C-alpha cells in the first residue's frame, strides 16, 4: 500500500467547516484545540479560496526532526503520530511545522501548556487499538475500524480527500481533467516533497 495522504481541493471547498466539526466531534477534542481548521485566502473578495488544514503527515516531517525527546514515530502507512507519555509540551514542533498543526491545550488553574495534540489521520496512538486509553489521549482509531478519517468522509463537497495516496491522487487527477482547471494541490509539495502543486 502507498502512504496515507490528505488532499484539499481548493476549487471545491466552500468553507462550511464540516471537517472541523466532524473532527472535534469524533475525537471529543477539548476547547481551544483545533486539529483541523479551514483557512480562507482573500476572504470576501470575488474568487476567494478556502482550504482545510491539519497535519499533512509529511514524508520528511519537520516536527519529528526537531523534537528534543523523540516522541514522534511514523507508521507503516506513513501516518505521523506521537507518544503523549513522552511529549514534554515544549512547543518546538509547532515552530517547525509549516501547517501549524501541533496544538497545545491549556491545563490547570494557570493555563499551563499541556502535551501536544494534533491530527492522527484517525489512527489513534501508541495504545491498544480501540481502548479507552487510546480514545482519551488520541481519539478514535478509525483506520483500525476499517474506515477513513472522519473529516474527509464527512466533507459535503468532497473537497477534502483522504486515503491511499495513489487512490486520492487518481480521484483528484480525474477531477482536474473533467473540469479542465484547478490542478494546484495546496500543501502537496511542502508535505510530500514533490513539485506537484507548484507553478512551473
Amino acid at each position: 500500500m502507498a502512504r496515507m495522504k490528505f488532499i484539499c481541493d481548493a476549487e471545491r471547498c466552500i468553507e462550511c467547516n464540516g471537517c472541523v466539526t466532524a473532527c472535534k466531534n469524533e475525537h471529543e477534542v477539548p476547547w481551544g484545540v483545533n486539529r483541523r481548521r479551514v483557512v480562507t485566502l482573500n476572504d470576501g473578495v470575488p474568487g476567494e479560496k478556502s482550504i482545510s488544514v491539519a497535519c499533512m503527515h509529511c514524508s520528511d516531517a519537520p516536527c519529528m526532526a526537531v523534537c528534543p525527546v523523540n516522541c514522534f514515530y511514523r507508521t507503516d502507512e506513513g501516518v505521523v503520530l506521537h507518544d503523549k507519555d513522552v511529549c514534554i509540551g515544549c512547543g518546538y514542533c509547532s515552530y517547525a511545522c509549516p501547517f501549524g498543526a501541533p496544538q497545545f491545550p491549556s491545563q490547570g488553574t494557570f493555563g499551563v501548556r499541556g502535551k501536544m495534540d494534533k491530527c492522527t489521520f484517525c489512527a489513534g496512538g501508541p495504545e491498544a487499538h480501540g481502548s479507552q486509553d487510546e480514545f482519551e489521549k488520541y481519539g478514535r482509531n478509525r483506520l483500525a475500524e476499517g474506515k477513513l478519517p472522519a473529516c474527509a468522509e464527512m466533507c459535503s463537497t468532497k473537497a477534502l480527500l483522504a486515503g491511499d495516496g495513489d487512490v486520492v491522487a487518481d480521484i483528484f487527477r480525474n477531477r482536474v481533467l473533467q473540469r479542465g482547471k484547478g490542478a494546484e494541490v495546496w500543501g502537496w509539495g511542502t508535505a510530500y516533497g514533490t513539485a506537484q502543486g507548484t507553478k512551473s
Partner: protein
Amino acid sequence: MSQRFILSIAAAALTLGLAACGDQPQEMNGAGVKQDGAPYTGVGKSQYAQGGWNVGDKTSWEQQLKARAQYGQNDYTRMSK
C-alpha cells in the same frame, strides 16, 4: 587507625568510581516511545468496527480502505455518464 582511613578512602573511591554504572541510558533512539500495533489488526469487538474485511489480513484491510475511498470520495464513478 591508618588502616581504617585507607579503607574509608577506598570505599569512597569505589562509590565515586561506580556511581555512573547506575545511570539510565539517555541516548535519543526513541526507545521510550511505545510500539503501535498495525491498524489491520482491528479494534477487537467494537460497535464502531466496520465489517466487510478480515481482521488481521493486511490485504483485505487495504482493499477495504481503497474501496471506501473510491465509493465515498470519487463522485465521478457514481454519477450517470
